[in-house]
């Protein structure tokens, strides 16, 4: 187990290193001098130099990379070129919208997919099964931002149950905050729940055809007992993989959905930063999201080893 863990840890560190180099180099090739941009056309040469020094723009490529990574590690993400405030503060505020949104959507997705997948698998070949599969086929094909717009039309504009956009803020209370995240979370969760339902169903069907299920039935367990006691746990492994992958789709998807609902999250921050050519903000947010994706995949790898002892032995 320890060897497996160390191996995973090493690959985690290498991935983070490689990702940071890629992001750094990509944005390094952008032409233009942020200091000149911030100070305008009439800036004096020595003022420009002082600002470059302050922003960490002087020095060799390697020095700049190291100071950027060093900053990331200590929570210093640099200063926004346009807002002149620490990037870490800007990200911190927005994280409290994007992260709850992603978790809300992940929860919804799981809450829908598990029962739906189990239901479809246990009624294999019936109209229930066909119905669930048909709905998931639609859920996978629908663009979630369009679905979001339709929900706004129905539930916000016509029924007036929710507001059409914006974020009430956590200061307005937990439920008020959750309420403004509800439509976005449903929109985000829909395609993921559809995929997860299909994975859950097919994984369960695979497991139900295994020998140990036949044995369980032969010793007198009912179909339902065999399913709940034996099949479900074994069927969870592929479901876990997809769940881990979904987190990255949720984070990325949140970037678009936040724009539908005008939510002040990381996604909107990125787009504002792109249009203002505020590259240090883009750099930091992208790095943060990639960091999150890599960490979640690492956690999923470890979770496997806990769920399935066979994997540990093979990989060790």
């Amino acid at each position, binding site marked *: 187990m320890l060897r497996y863990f160390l191996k995973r840890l090493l690959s985690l560190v290498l991935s983070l290193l490689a990702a940071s180099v890629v992001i750094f180099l990509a944005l390094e090739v952008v032409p233009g001098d942020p200091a000149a941009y911030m100070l305008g056309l009439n800036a004096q040469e020595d003022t420009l130099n002082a600002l470059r020094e302050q922003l960490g723009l002087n020095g060799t490529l390697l020095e700049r990379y190291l100071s950027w990574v060093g900053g990331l590690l200590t929570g210093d993400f640099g200063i926004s070129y346009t807002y002149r405030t620490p990037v870490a503060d800007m990200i911190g505020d927005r994280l409290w919208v994007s992260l709850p949104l992603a978790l809300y959507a992940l929860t919804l997705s799981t809450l829908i997919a598990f029962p739906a997948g189990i239901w479809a698998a246990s009624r294999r070949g019936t109209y229930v099964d066909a119905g669930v599969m048909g709905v998931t086929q639609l859920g996978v*094909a629908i663009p979630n931002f369009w679905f979001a717009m339709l929900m706004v039309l129905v539930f916000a504009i016509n029924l007036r149950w929710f507001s059409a956009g914006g974020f009430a803020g956590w200061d307005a209370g937990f439920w008020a905050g959750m309420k403004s995240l509800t439509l976005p979370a449903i929109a985000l969760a829909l395609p993921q729940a559809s995929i997860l339902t299909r994975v859950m169903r097919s994984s369960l069907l695979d497991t139900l055809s295994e020998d140990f299920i036949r044995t369980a039935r032969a010793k007198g367990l009912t179909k339902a007992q065999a399913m709940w006691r034996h099949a479900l746990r074994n069927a969870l492994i592929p479901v876990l993989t997809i769940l881990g992958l979904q987190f990255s789709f949720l984070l990325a998807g949140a970037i678009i959905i936040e724009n539908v609902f005008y939510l002040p999250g990381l996604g909107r921050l990125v787009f504002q930063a792109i249009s203002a050519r505020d590259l240090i903000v883009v750099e930091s947010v992208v790095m943060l999201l990639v960091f999150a994706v890599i960490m979640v995949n690492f956690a999923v790898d470890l979770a496997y080893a806990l769920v399935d002892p066979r994997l540990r032995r093979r990989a060790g």
Partner: protein
Amino acid sequence: MTMFLHSRTLIPGMVLTVLFAGAALISLVWVPYDTTVLDIANKIKSPSWAHPFGTDQFGRDILSMIMVGARTSIAVALVAVGIGMVAGVPLGLAAAARRGGMLDEFIMRMNDLVFAFPSLLIAVMITAVFGASALNAIIAIGIFNIPVFARLTRGAALSLWSREYIMAARVAGKGAARISLEHILPNVANLLIVQGTIQFSLGILAEAGLSYVGLGAQPPVASWGRMLADSQTMISFAPHLALFPGLAILLTVLGLNLLGDGLRDILDPKLRRART
């Protein structure tokens, strides 16, 4: 012909796919109304006989816009899948031919790295650096497709390398490159076609999303995602502006997914139950 009947999804999938591919092709030579001409007198008209899907805020015919937009979506997704295949398949073949070696390890680690960047984040970075355009959307979606095809090819090729007929080819003195091309590739082609269909539909969704947030095709290029973005502020009084482009995306993606399912049923019976 009977094999077409084995799959319930193939025919509807084909019909939808042909419908939208056809609309895109027809738009090259004919559209009901010119989408570059503004007709302000007829703006935001509900569907009618003259304009079956209505007109937008500039009086442009929405049916024509959707036909031209189909061209953008299909072109972007198709080229992106092409990039993924052209780069990913040789990488996967090479990794499998040198399984367990440094090259294999390197290719798979690079794949993991690309997977850590959701395609939208790649697009965000490319846009930040080079600006937004349909071409950059293609590159972003294409890069994301490379590891998908590399992994699939490697996995399938690995299982083939232990087969007897590959052994026979090796005994006959064929090199790894030749075996990969002559024996492995033809046997993974079916899988690639099925995955290609799925990636194609994902590409259309991705293009729509990128265009919706302004990272994809720029005006005056018509695109379904942009049409939806433009319609958003008018959705309360002109919902048809949002309805038809969204339906176009939904039906195209649905059609491709059904087609992919159907093709898999025909081409690879072993995988029939496994798809999710």
